[in-house]
Protein backbone atom coordinates (compact mmCIF):
# COMPACT_ATOMS: atom_id res chain seq x y z
CA UNK A 1 0.00 0.00 0.00
CA UNK A 2 2.78 2.39 0.98
CA UNK A 3 4.52 1.58 -2.29
CA UNK A 4 1.33 2.43 -4.13
CA UNK A 5 1.05 5.74 -2.33
CA UNK A 6 4.67 6.64 -2.89
CA UNK A 7 4.13 6.23 -6.62
CA UNK A 8 1.89 9.32 -6.52
CA UNK A 9 4.58 11.48 -4.93
CA UNK A 10 5.60 14.18 -5.25
CA UNK A 11 2.36 15.96 -5.94
CA UNK A 12 2.16 19.02 -8.10
CA UNK A 13 1.27 22.23 -6.21
CA UNK A 14 -2.17 22.30 -7.80
CA UNK A 15 -2.87 18.67 -6.88
CA UNK A 16 -1.59 19.23 -3.35
CA UNK A 17 -3.84 22.23 -2.83
CA UNK A 18 -6.83 20.46 -4.28
CA UNK A 19 -6.37 17.43 -2.03
CA UNK A 20 -5.80 19.71 0.94
CA UNK A 21 -8.96 21.68 0.23
CA UNK A 22 -10.99 18.46 0.02
CA UNK A 23 -9.52 17.10 3.27
CA UNK A 24 -12.11 18.98 5.28
CA UNK A 25 -15.36 18.54 3.43
CA UNK A 26 -16.87 17.74 0.08
CA UNK A 27 -16.62 20.74 -2.22
CA UNK A 28 -17.67 21.72 -5.70
CA UNK A 29 -15.24 23.18 -8.20
CA UNK A 30 -15.74 26.79 -7.29
CA UNK A 31 -15.55 25.89 -3.59
CA UNK A 32 -12.19 24.24 -4.20
CA UNK A 33 -10.94 27.37 -5.94
CA UNK A 34 -12.01 29.52 -3.01
CA UNK A 35 -10.53 27.14 -0.45
CA UNK A 36 -7.21 27.03 -2.27
CA UNK A 37 -7.11 30.82 -2.33
CA UNK A 38 -7.92 30.91 1.39
CA UNK A 39 -5.24 28.35 2.29
CA UNK A 40 -2.56 30.27 0.45
CA UNK A 41 -3.72 33.67 1.61
CA UNK A 42 -4.59 34.52 -1.96
CA UNK A 43 -1.08 33.83 -3.24
CA UNK A 44 -2.05 30.77 -5.21
CA UNK A 45 -5.10 30.93 -7.41
CA UNK A 46 -6.46 28.12 -9.50
CA UNK A 47 -8.28 28.81 -12.73
CA UNK A 48 -11.12 26.49 -13.80
CA UNK A 49 -9.00 25.01 -16.59
CA UNK A 50 -6.19 24.05 -14.23
CA UNK A 51 -8.61 22.91 -11.57
CA UNK A 52 -10.59 20.53 -13.75
CA UNK A 53 -7.52 19.29 -15.54
CA UNK A 54 -6.11 18.24 -12.17
CA UNK A 55 -9.42 16.92 -10.96
CA UNK A 56 -9.61 14.78 -14.06
CA UNK A 57 -6.27 13.23 -13.24
CA UNK A 58 -7.01 12.83 -9.55
CA UNK A 59 -10.31 11.14 -10.28
CA UNK A 60 -8.63 8.74 -12.64
CA UNK A 61 -6.00 8.01 -10.00
CA UNK A 62 -8.87 7.42 -7.54
CA UNK A 63 -7.57 10.02 -5.14
CA UNK A 64 -10.75 12.03 -5.53
CA UNK A 65 -14.28 10.75 -5.97
CA UNK A 66 -17.01 12.56 -7.82
CA UNK A 67 -20.16 12.72 -5.69
CA UNK A 68 -22.53 14.22 -8.20
CA UNK A 69 -24.94 17.10 -7.94
CA UNK A 70 -26.96 18.19 -4.96
CA UNK A 71 -30.56 19.25 -5.24
CA UNK A 72 -30.31 21.91 -2.61
CA UNK A 73 -27.36 23.65 -4.27
CA UNK A 74 -27.94 27.16 -5.63
CA UNK A 75 -26.44 26.10 -8.96
CA UNK A 76 -27.63 22.66 -10.13
CA UNK A 77 -24.72 22.39 -12.55
CA UNK A 78 -22.22 21.97 -9.75
CA UNK A 79 -20.81 18.61 -8.92
CA UNK A 80 -19.24 17.82 -5.58
CA UNK A 81 -15.97 16.03 -5.02
CA UNK A 82 -14.69 14.01 -2.10
CA UNK A 83 -11.26 12.90 -1.00
CA UNK A 84 -10.94 9.11 -1.05
CA UNK A 85 -9.09 7.02 1.51
CA UNK A 86 -6.23 6.65 -0.91
CA UNK A 87 -6.29 10.41 -1.38
CA UNK A 88 -6.05 10.84 2.38
CA UNK A 89 -3.05 8.54 2.47
CA UNK A 90 -1.35 10.31 -0.41
CA UNK A 91 -1.95 13.70 1.18
CA UNK A 92 -0.55 12.50 4.50
CA UNK A 93 2.50 11.02 2.78
CA UNK A 94 3.08 14.21 0.83
CA UNK A 95 2.76 16.24 4.03
CA UNK A 96 5.40 14.08 5.72
CA UNK A 97 7.63 14.39 2.70
CA UNK A 98 7.28 18.17 2.69
CA UNK A 99 7.89 18.28 6.44
CA UNK A 100 11.16 16.44 5.87
CA UNK A 101 12.07 18.88 3.12
CA UNK A 102 11.33 21.85 5.39
CA UNK A 103 13.29 20.31 8.25
CA UNK A 104 16.28 19.73 6.03
CA UNK A 105 16.02 23.23 4.61
CA UNK A 106 15.98 24.75 8.09
CA UNK A 107 19.00 22.72 9.06
CA UNK A 108 20.93 23.66 5.95
CA UNK A 109 19.97 27.32 6.07
CA UNK A 110 20.20 27.42 9.87
CA UNK A 111 16.78 28.88 10.18
CA UNK A 112 15.60 28.55 13.75
CA UNK A 113 12.26 26.95 14.38
CA UNK A 114 9.53 28.82 16.17
CA UNK A 115 10.31 27.01 19.41
CA UNK A 116 13.95 28.01 19.15
CA UNK A 117 12.94 31.63 18.65
CA UNK A 118 11.18 31.75 22.00
CA UNK A 119 13.19 33.64 24.63
CA UNK A 120 14.58 31.47 27.39
CA UNK A 121 13.85 32.39 30.95
CA UNK A 122 16.76 32.94 33.21
Amino acid at each position, binding site marked *: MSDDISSFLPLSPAALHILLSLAGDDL*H*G*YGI*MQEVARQSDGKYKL*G*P*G*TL*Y*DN*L*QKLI*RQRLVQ*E*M*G*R*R*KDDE*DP*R*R*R*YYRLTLVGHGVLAAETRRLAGVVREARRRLQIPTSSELKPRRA
Partner: protein
Amino acid sequence: MLRLLYRTQLALHPPAFRKRFADEMLSIFDRPGEWSAKLQLLADGFLSLVRQWALRPEFWYEHSSAIPTQPASDGIPSFFVLDSFRPRPSALIHGLVVSMAVFCLTCFAIRYSSIHILHLHIPRVLWEEQSSIQPSVSPSELRGKVESPGKAGSLPTPAPAIPAAISSHSPSAVQAKASATVLAMDGTKPQSQITAGSSGLVTVTAIQQSQTQLYAGVYICHSPDVTIAITTDHGSLMMKVGGQPKRALAPVSSTRCLIVDVEDSWIEFDRDNTGTIRRLRFFQDGRLLTAERR
Protein backbone atom coordinates in the same frame (compact mmCIF):
# COMPACT_ATOMS: atom_id res chain seq x y z
CA MET B 1 -20.24 38.14 -25.90
CA LEU B 2 -17.57 36.91 -23.48
CA ARG B 3 -19.84 34.10 -22.40
CA LEU B 4 -20.32 33.06 -26.01
CA LEU B 5 -16.56 33.02 -26.50
CA TYR B 6 -16.12 30.97 -23.36
CA ARG B 7 -18.80 28.52 -24.43
CA THR B 8 -17.08 28.19 -27.78
CA GLN B 9 -13.81 27.46 -26.05
CA LEU B 10 -15.47 24.80 -23.94
CA ALA B 11 -17.13 23.30 -26.99
CA LEU B 12 -13.71 22.92 -28.60
CA HIS B 13 -12.37 20.85 -25.71
CA PRO B 14 -12.00 17.08 -26.11
CA PRO B 15 -15.36 15.32 -25.88
CA ALA B 16 -14.73 13.51 -22.61
CA PHE B 17 -13.53 16.62 -20.85
CA ARG B 18 -16.34 18.70 -22.32
CA LYS B 19 -19.07 16.29 -21.24
CA ARG B 20 -17.66 16.03 -17.79
CA PHE B 21 -16.64 19.56 -16.85
CA ALA B 22 -18.01 22.08 -19.34
CA ASP B 23 -21.19 22.76 -17.35
CA GLU B 24 -19.25 23.34 -14.17
CA MET B 25 -16.72 25.61 -15.86
CA LEU B 26 -19.54 27.60 -17.38
CA SER B 27 -21.23 27.87 -14.00
CA ILE B 28 -18.02 29.40 -12.62
CA PHE B 29 -17.90 31.78 -15.54
CA ASP B 30 -21.53 32.76 -14.93
CA ARG B 31 -20.77 33.94 -11.42
CA PRO B 32 -20.92 37.71 -11.11
CA GLY B 33 -17.55 39.32 -11.57
CA GLU B 34 -15.63 42.06 -13.20
CA TRP B 35 -14.55 42.20 -16.79
CA SER B 36 -10.98 41.54 -15.83
CA ALA B 37 -11.97 38.36 -14.04
CA LYS B 38 -13.93 37.25 -17.09
CA LEU B 39 -10.93 37.90 -19.31
CA GLN B 40 -8.75 35.88 -16.96
CA LEU B 41 -11.22 33.02 -17.24
CA LEU B 42 -11.11 33.32 -21.02
CA ALA B 43 -7.33 33.13 -20.96
CA ASP B 44 -7.53 30.18 -18.59
CA GLY B 45 -9.99 28.50 -20.92
CA PHE B 46 -7.67 28.97 -23.86
CA LEU B 47 -4.75 27.47 -21.95
CA SER B 48 -6.96 24.61 -20.89
CA LEU B 49 -7.96 24.02 -24.50
CA VAL B 50 -4.35 23.84 -25.61
CA ARG B 51 -3.39 21.69 -22.64
CA GLN B 52 -6.16 19.17 -23.16
CA TRP B 53 -5.47 18.65 -26.85
CA ALA B 54 -1.68 18.84 -26.63
CA LEU B 55 -0.87 17.15 -23.32
CA ARG B 56 -3.82 14.95 -22.42
CA PRO B 57 -4.40 12.55 -25.30
CA GLU B 58 -5.33 9.81 -22.86
CA PHE B 59 -8.43 11.80 -21.90
CA TRP B 60 -9.61 12.70 -25.37
CA TYR B 61 -12.11 9.92 -25.77
CA GLU B 62 -12.36 8.54 -22.32
CA HIS B 63 -14.93 5.77 -22.27
CA SER B 64 -18.28 6.92 -21.05
CA SER B 65 -18.40 4.10 -18.48
CA ALA B 66 -15.65 5.87 -16.61
CA ILE B 67 -18.03 8.73 -16.00
CA PRO B 68 -19.93 8.02 -12.83
CA THR B 69 -23.61 7.53 -13.15
CA GLN B 70 -26.07 10.08 -11.94
CA PRO B 71 -26.05 9.70 -8.19
CA ALA B 72 -29.08 9.44 -6.04
CA SER B 73 -30.44 12.48 -4.26
CA ASP B 74 -28.78 11.48 -1.00
CA GLY B 75 -25.36 11.71 -2.61
CA ILE B 76 -24.85 7.97 -2.84
CA PRO B 77 -24.32 6.79 -6.40
CA SER B 78 -26.97 4.42 -7.66
CA PHE B 79 -24.39 1.90 -8.79
CA PHE B 80 -20.74 1.73 -9.62
CA VAL B 81 -19.12 0.56 -12.81
CA LEU B 82 -16.31 -1.78 -12.06
CA ASP B 83 -13.15 -1.85 -14.04
CA SER B 84 -12.72 -4.59 -16.55
CA PHE B 85 -11.23 -7.48 -14.67
CA ARG B 86 -9.83 -10.69 -15.97
CA PRO B 87 -8.90 -13.28 -13.40
CA ARG B 88 -5.77 -15.36 -13.66
CA PRO B 89 -6.10 -18.77 -15.33
CA SER B 90 -5.07 -20.49 -12.11
CA ALA B 91 -7.84 -18.66 -10.29
CA LEU B 92 -10.32 -19.85 -12.91
CA ILE B 93 -9.16 -23.43 -12.50
CA HIS B 94 -9.39 -23.20 -8.72
CA GLY B 95 -12.85 -21.72 -9.02
CA LEU B 96 -13.91 -24.52 -11.33
CA VAL B 97 -12.60 -27.18 -8.96
CA VAL B 98 -14.24 -25.59 -5.94
CA SER B 99 -17.53 -25.18 -7.80
CA MET B 100 -17.54 -28.82 -8.86
CA ALA B 101 -16.68 -29.94 -5.34
CA VAL B 102 -19.52 -27.90 -3.89
CA PHE B 103 -21.89 -29.23 -6.51
CA CYS B 104 -20.90 -32.84 -5.80
CA LEU B 105 -21.20 -32.31 -2.06
CA THR B 106 -24.63 -30.83 -2.51
CA CYS B 107 -25.75 -33.76 -4.62
CA PHE B 108 -24.29 -36.20 -2.11
CA ALA B 109 -26.01 -34.43 0.77
CA ILE B 110 -29.34 -34.51 -1.03
CA ARG B 111 -28.96 -38.17 -1.88
CA TYR B 112 -27.84 -39.39 1.52
CA SER B 113 -29.34 -36.88 3.90
CA SER B 114 -31.49 -38.01 6.78
CA ILE B 115 -34.55 -36.62 5.08
CA HIS B 116 -35.54 -39.05 2.39
CA ILE B 117 -38.20 -38.38 -0.08
CA LEU B 118 -40.69 -41.23 -0.05
CA HIS B 119 -40.34 -43.01 -3.32
CA LEU B 120 -42.95 -45.64 -4.03
CA HIS B 121 -43.62 -47.60 -7.12
CA ILE B 122 -47.28 -46.96 -7.60
CA PRO B 123 -49.39 -49.42 -9.52
CA ARG B 124 -50.04 -48.20 -12.98
CA VAL B 125 -52.99 -48.94 -15.19
CA LEU B 126 -52.46 -49.14 -18.90
CA TRP B 127 -55.50 -49.36 -21.13
CA GLU B 128 -55.15 -50.57 -24.64
CA GLU B 129 -56.99 -48.90 -27.43
CA GLN B 130 -60.48 -50.14 -28.14
CA SER B 131 -59.40 -50.98 -31.68
CA SER B 132 -57.13 -53.68 -30.37
CA ILE B 133 -60.07 -55.74 -29.17
CA GLN B 134 -60.43 -58.99 -30.97
CA PRO B 135 -64.00 -58.99 -32.24
CA SER B 136 -64.12 -62.77 -32.11
CA VAL B 137 -63.80 -62.70 -28.36
CA SER B 138 -66.95 -61.69 -26.56
CA PRO B 139 -67.05 -60.53 -22.95
CA SER B 140 -68.77 -63.72 -21.96
CA GLU B 141 -65.99 -65.72 -23.50
CA LEU B 142 -63.48 -63.58 -21.73
CA ARG B 143 -65.27 -64.14 -18.49
CA GLY B 144 -65.16 -67.87 -19.03
CA LYS B 145 -61.41 -67.79 -19.58
CA VAL B 146 -60.62 -65.92 -16.46
CA GLU B 147 -57.94 -67.54 -14.48
CA SER B 148 -58.04 -67.77 -10.76
CA PRO B 149 -55.85 -65.28 -8.88
CA GLY B 150 -53.89 -68.14 -7.40
CA LYS B 151 -52.12 -68.38 -10.70
CA ALA B 152 -51.01 -64.83 -10.38
CA GLY B 153 -48.69 -65.98 -7.70
CA SER B 154 -48.68 -63.13 -5.22
CA LEU B 155 -52.21 -63.06 -3.95
CA PRO B 156 -53.08 -64.32 -0.53
CA THR B 157 -56.71 -65.22 -1.14
CA PRO B 158 -57.53 -67.24 -4.23
CA ALA B 159 -60.87 -66.32 -5.66
CA PRO B 160 -62.47 -66.65 -9.01
CA ALA B 161 -62.25 -63.31 -10.65
CA ILE B 162 -64.63 -61.32 -12.72
CA PRO B 163 -63.47 -58.13 -14.42
CA ALA B 164 -66.49 -56.44 -13.04
CA ALA B 165 -65.37 -53.38 -11.19
CA ILE B 166 -62.45 -52.43 -13.30
CA SER B 167 -62.11 -48.81 -14.24
CA SER B 168 -65.69 -47.81 -14.48
CA HIS B 169 -68.74 -47.04 -12.46
CA SER B 170 -71.00 -49.53 -14.20
CA PRO B 171 -70.47 -53.23 -14.94
CA SER B 172 -71.47 -52.79 -18.54
CA ALA B 173 -68.75 -50.28 -19.09
CA VAL B 174 -66.36 -52.61 -17.44
CA GLN B 175 -67.30 -55.36 -19.84
CA ALA B 176 -66.70 -53.04 -22.75
CA LYS B 177 -63.21 -52.61 -21.50
CA ALA B 178 -62.66 -56.23 -20.82
CA SER B 179 -59.96 -56.28 -23.39
CA ALA B 180 -57.87 -53.84 -21.46
CA THR B 181 -54.63 -54.62 -19.84
CA VAL B 182 -54.18 -53.85 -16.21
CA LEU B 183 -50.70 -53.89 -14.90
CA ALA B 184 -50.39 -53.56 -11.18
CA MET B 185 -46.82 -53.30 -10.19
CA ASP B 186 -45.50 -53.45 -6.72
CA GLY B 187 -41.85 -52.70 -7.06
CA THR B 188 -40.67 -54.62 -10.07
CA LYS B 189 -43.00 -57.54 -9.84
CA PRO B 190 -46.46 -57.32 -11.39
CA GLN B 191 -49.17 -58.47 -9.04
CA SER B 192 -51.87 -59.11 -11.51
CA GLN B 193 -52.61 -58.81 -15.11
CA ILE B 194 -55.73 -58.71 -17.20
CA THR B 195 -55.22 -59.19 -20.87
CA ALA B 196 -57.24 -60.17 -23.87
CA GLY B 197 -55.33 -60.55 -27.04
CA SER B 198 -55.40 -62.81 -30.04
CA SER B 199 -54.79 -65.78 -27.83
CA GLY B 200 -57.85 -64.95 -25.79
CA LEU B 201 -55.93 -65.38 -22.58
CA VAL B 202 -57.26 -63.32 -19.73
CA THR B 203 -55.49 -63.14 -16.42
CA VAL B 204 -57.43 -61.32 -13.77
CA THR B 205 -57.13 -60.71 -10.11
CA ALA B 206 -60.13 -58.92 -8.75
CA ILE B 207 -62.91 -59.01 -6.25
CA GLN B 208 -66.08 -60.86 -6.84
CA GLN B 209 -69.22 -58.80 -6.96
CA SER B 210 -70.74 -60.90 -4.23
CA GLN B 211 -67.75 -60.23 -1.99
CA THR B 212 -67.65 -56.48 -2.31
CA GLN B 213 -69.88 -56.17 0.74
CA LEU B 214 -67.04 -57.63 2.78
CA TYR B 215 -65.01 -54.52 2.07
CA ALA B 216 -67.76 -51.98 2.60
CA GLY B 217 -67.62 -50.01 5.79
CA VAL B 218 -66.26 -46.93 7.44
CA TYR B 219 -62.59 -46.71 8.07
CA ILE B 220 -61.22 -44.09 10.41
CA CYS B 221 -57.78 -42.64 10.46
CA HIS B 222 -56.84 -40.70 13.57
CA SER B 223 -53.71 -39.02 12.33
CA PRO B 224 -54.78 -37.08 10.40
CA ASP B 225 -58.43 -37.31 11.27
CA VAL B 226 -59.90 -38.72 8.08
CA THR B 227 -62.92 -40.90 7.53
CA ILE B 228 -62.93 -43.20 4.53
CA ALA B 229 -66.22 -44.71 3.50
CA ILE B 230 -66.16 -47.80 1.31
CA THR B 231 -69.49 -48.59 -0.29
CA THR B 232 -70.82 -50.75 -3.06
CA ASP B 233 -72.73 -49.64 -6.09
CA HIS B 234 -74.08 -52.29 -8.44
CA GLY B 235 -71.39 -54.62 -7.28
CA SER B 236 -68.63 -52.09 -7.71
CA LEU B 237 -66.60 -50.77 -4.84
CA MET B 238 -66.80 -47.05 -4.27
CA MET B 239 -64.80 -44.85 -1.97
CA LYS B 240 -65.47 -41.48 -0.38
CA VAL B 241 -62.83 -39.64 1.60
CA GLY B 242 -63.97 -36.70 3.69
CA GLY B 243 -65.38 -34.00 1.47
CA GLN B 244 -63.94 -35.47 -1.71
CA PRO B 245 -66.31 -36.80 -4.32
CA LYS B 246 -67.13 -40.46 -4.46
CA ARG B 247 -64.65 -42.46 -6.49
CA ALA B 248 -64.85 -45.88 -8.03
CA LEU B 249 -62.29 -48.48 -7.05
CA ALA B 250 -60.69 -50.81 -9.52
CA PRO B 251 -59.56 -53.99 -7.78
CA VAL B 252 -56.30 -55.32 -9.01
CA SER B 253 -56.07 -58.03 -6.38
CA SER B 254 -58.21 -59.31 -3.59
CA THR B 255 -56.71 -56.73 -1.26
CA ARG B 256 -55.59 -53.90 -3.47
CA CYS B 257 -57.66 -51.44 -5.47
CA LEU B 258 -56.73 -48.55 -7.64
CA ILE B 259 -58.74 -45.36 -7.41
CA VAL B 260 -60.29 -44.61 -10.76
CA ASP B 261 -59.43 -41.28 -12.35
CA VAL B 262 -56.96 -40.41 -9.60
CA GLU B 263 -53.36 -40.86 -10.56
CA ASP B 264 -50.89 -42.59 -8.28
CA SER B 265 -53.39 -43.56 -5.66
CA TRP B 266 -54.47 -46.89 -4.28
CA ILE B 267 -56.09 -48.63 -1.38
CA GLU B 268 -54.93 -51.82 0.21
CA PHE B 269 -57.10 -53.79 2.62
CA ASP B 270 -55.62 -55.76 5.50
CA ARG B 271 -57.23 -58.95 6.69
CA ASP B 272 -56.88 -60.56 10.07
CA ASN B 273 -56.46 -64.28 10.65
CA THR B 274 -60.15 -64.92 10.11
CA GLY B 275 -60.06 -63.17 6.75
CA THR B 276 -62.05 -60.18 7.95
CA ILE B 277 -61.06 -56.80 6.64
CA ARG B 278 -59.82 -54.82 9.65
CA ARG B 279 -58.02 -51.86 8.21
CA LEU B 280 -56.97 -50.28 4.99
CA ARG B 281 -54.04 -48.31 3.79
CA PHE B 282 -54.78 -45.38 1.55
CA PHE B 283 -52.11 -43.79 -0.61
CA GLN B 284 -52.70 -40.51 -2.41
CA ASP B 285 -50.59 -37.48 -3.26
CA GLY B 286 -47.49 -39.09 -1.81
CA ARG B 287 -49.11 -39.69 1.59
CA LEU B 288 -49.90 -43.02 3.12
CA LEU B 289 -52.74 -43.24 5.64
CA THR B 290 -53.77 -46.21 7.71
CA ALA B 291 -57.40 -46.34 8.77
CA GLU B 292 -59.03 -48.80 11.14
CA ARG B 293 -62.43 -50.19 10.36
CA ARG B 294 -65.13 -48.96 12.67
